[in-house]
């Protein structure tokens, strides 16, 4: 019943329709705020990958670790599984008058070891993550908070140079203050209206005192404040969590526990879902996507929907050959996105019409307009006028499933422009990222983005602002920077979003990266699961899912 509709969604171009059909298609679960009903003693198994780092929220930003961290921890806010709208979780209220000083009242929650979640838990946790000698991956998320530059110093010549980063003058950010056990006051360096939305991201989770007293013991047995507590971990095999019965959140999970199981291959995991050995899989192997085989293999137990992700190809703007915006616009119009979508993705990944993924709060449709529409004749005319020499070369890492669509993209470029286009892969993701990070890229490269937190801001600031944390192409436009700064400081979300949208249109005119298609997730589950909702961040909603033994 659910299957088949999956493809139909993408024929509808309007994201509001996408949103409502996502609600209809996601398994007939309960409405967003509700939990999954009766508590049962069934433990479900969920496909995952081995976390790449110890399970510390401030140092986790990949999907394998992220799923477990999301189940173990709950932040000040959480996101609706369907609409991705933020709502208060640990926070009772988040108040501000100027988008710069936030007063956050906390509910009386406890960690899994029984200790209370206090304002000081957040202060300590955030200071730990931001302090650069601790080397946490998510440190940059605190850059908005006053005093961040006093605790986080840059290595003046990068990691490969002989110089070391100077010791930060302070250990704590001046903008963080625990007024009392249940009141947290956060002062930002500049007004930033999106700050409350950020608070549901992993970097902002609280850590218990146990973490600071014995880090090794914590890593072996993580203690969070989320709906599930840690039970066991078998390297290379699984991580098992069980329901935390004293969980204070409004929504409570129905299942007794979750086993995050690591598979040697997606194909093996898929075979297990088909035969009912695995309960949930959020990625379907290409062999089952072909001809939409998964819809027959998993009758009534699969879903296909977009999530907050965007696939792009980016230009190394530090390379003189790519500095002409006309060239970048021409290439964008030379790509037949719909043809690639139909031929490679079976129509499951809708062509991008802007820089912001569907369902992201603040997004509007059609921002890219003409420039993302396939117009071979116009593209060829513009491209020839730029005088670009040599073949067009696209690159990506070969250790992931990107070769097919990149090759297909090349084919449409060749057809439109009559120029040679080659796909030149690099063996590993590490090597690929090394070249990008070192600003040594000389080809047009694949670059994806999945939202950290649901806001249009997260699709713009990190990638297009001068010096942004993921501005890999070294794009810089002072007018865009000024507009983004104004949007950040806007007194309300609506005014902020309007300014972000204006900035988006301005960035698209420069086309520092070509938006290609929106990411979609194909998920399947075993016959014993019901009320399955796949969140906008591509995870199984562990609150609403129910299972029979």
């Amino acid at each position, binding site marked *: 019943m659910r299957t088949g509709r999956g493809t139909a969604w993408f024929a509808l171009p309007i994201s509001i329709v996408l949103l409502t059909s996502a609600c209809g298609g996601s398994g007939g679960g309960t409405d967003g705020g509700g939990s999954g009903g009766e508590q049962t003693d069934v433990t479900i198994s969920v496909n995952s990958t*081995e976390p790449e780092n110890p399970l510390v929220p401030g140092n986790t930003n990949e999907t394998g670790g992220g799923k477990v961290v999301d189940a173990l921890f709950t932040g000040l806010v959480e996101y609706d599984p369907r609409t991705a709208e933020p709502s208060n979780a640990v926070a009772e209220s988040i108040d501000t008058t100027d988008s710069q000083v936030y007063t956050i009242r906390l509910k009386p929650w406890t960690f899994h070891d029984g200790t209370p979640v206090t304002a000081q838990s957040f202060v300590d946790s955030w200071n730990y993550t931001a302090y650069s000698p601790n080397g946490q991956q998510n*440190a940059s998320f605190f850059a908005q908070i006053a005093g961040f530059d006093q605790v986080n110093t840059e290595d003046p010549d*990068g990691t490969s140079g002989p110089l070391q980063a100077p010791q930060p003058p302070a250990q704590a950010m001046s903008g963080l203050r625990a007024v009392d056990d249940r009141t947290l006051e956060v002062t930002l360096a500049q007004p930033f209206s999106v700050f409350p939305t950020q608070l549901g991201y992993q970097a902002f989770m609280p850590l218990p005192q146990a973490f600071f007293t014995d880090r090794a013991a914590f890593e072996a047995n993580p203690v969070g404040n989320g709906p599930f507590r840690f039970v066991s971990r078998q390297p*290379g095999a699984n991580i098992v969590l069980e329901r935390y019965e004293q969980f204070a959140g409004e929504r409570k999970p129905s299942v007794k526990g979750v086993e995050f199981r690591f598979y*040697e291959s997606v194909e093996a995991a898929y075979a297990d879902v088909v035969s009912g050995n695995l309960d949930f899989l959020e990625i379907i192997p290409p062999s089952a996507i072909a001809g939409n085989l998964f819809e027959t293999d998993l009758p009534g137990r699969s879903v296909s929907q977009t999530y907050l992700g965007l696939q792009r190809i980016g230009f190394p703007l530090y390379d003189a050959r790519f500095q002409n915006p006309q060239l970048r616009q021409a290439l964008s119009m030379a790509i037949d996105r719909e043809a690639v979508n139909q031929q490679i993705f079976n129509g499951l990944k809708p062509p991008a019409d802007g820089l912001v993924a569907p369902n992201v709060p603040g997004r509007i449709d059609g921002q890219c307009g003409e420039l993302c529409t396939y117009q071979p004749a116009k593209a060829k005319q513009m491209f020839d006028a730029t005088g670009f020499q040599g073949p067009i070369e696209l690159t990506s890492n070969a250790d992931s499933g990107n070769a097919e669509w990149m090759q297909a993209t090349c084919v449409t470029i060749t057809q439109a422009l009559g120029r040679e286009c080659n796909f030149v892969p690099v063996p590993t993701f*590490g090597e690929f990222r*090394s070249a990008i990070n070192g600003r040594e890229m000389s080809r047009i490269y694949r670059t994806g983005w999945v939202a950290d937190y649901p806001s249009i801001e997260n699709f713009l600031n990190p990638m297009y602002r001068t010096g942004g944390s993921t501005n890999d192409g070294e794009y810089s436009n002072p007018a865009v920077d000024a507009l983004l700064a104004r949007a950040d400081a806007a007194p309300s979300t609506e005014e902020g979003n309007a300014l972000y949208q204006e900035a988006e249109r301005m960035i698209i005119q420069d086309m520092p990266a070509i938006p290609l298609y929106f990411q979609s997730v194909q998920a399947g589950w075993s016959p014993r699961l019901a009320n399955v909702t796949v969140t906008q961040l591509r995870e199984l909603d562990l609150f609403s899912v129910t299972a029979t033994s």
Partner: protein
Amino acid sequence: MGRYVLRRLVQLVPVFLGTTFLIYLLVWAIPGDPFAGKCGDRPCPDAYITRMRAEFHLDDNVVVQYARYLGNLVQGDFGQTFNGTSVGALIAAAYPVTVRLALVALLIEAVIGLAAGVLTGLRSGGYLDNLVLVSTLFLIAIPVFVTGYVLQTVLGLRLGLISPTVSPAAGFGELIVPGFVLGSLSMAYVARLTRTSIAENRRTDYVRTAVAKGLTPRRVVGVHLLRNSAIPVVTFLGVDLGSLMGGAIVTEGIFNIRGVGGLIFRSIQTKEGATVTGVVVLLVVVYLLMNLLVDVLYAVLDPRIRYD
């Protein structure tokens, strides 16, 4: 014999040191920073990379790194992966699974391969001979992953006779089908090797003598013929056990067997030098010991071969 074995065991030491050093060097030389791809489509913060490099001593000279690794290894410490898991624990979990899988595969290929080889070698040109020749040719022609996926889909998904994947415990029973897949190619080789060897030796003088002496056919074949014909087959099986253990990546991936093949593959991709070297060290030891065992078996099988 004892001195020979001892000499061979002492020879293991330089070989062991040489291979481990080479492997360490090779992993170290894989291009790309191991932490460059750790943060998704976002560059990792410099502070994170600096901390990790310091924690794993990656800024030292590669020889110094190797010496430190070897020093720890001698004390039984295989080191840690980048996510803080002990490599020793990973190997302890993966190795028994791989050994079981390799043994099942070896047993299947030895029993079926030898039986088919002996039967067809004795009656070459018959119906059975042609059947074995065609079916082994078929097995040699199709790649392992085709055999694997076909058996998994048909037996596991369509007929429901087996579970499509192997549980973490990976008992012998669960490993029969994966073992068959893994051993199928070698099984075909063993059958053909045995067949040729038997057919050749059937016409030798000592077999004619044995028959002329009036020995029962069972004794002629079982003792005189088979023993001599087994030498090339034993060589093949011995070396094959080594490659079955290290080269089961495809089979392990299809049936989700958590063995060393997948472990090495993932570790190479993420430049986890400690894991790759640790696992390969053990594979090298197994390989060397198997070779020694094969050489010793020669002397047992063929009285003309002496080592002292």
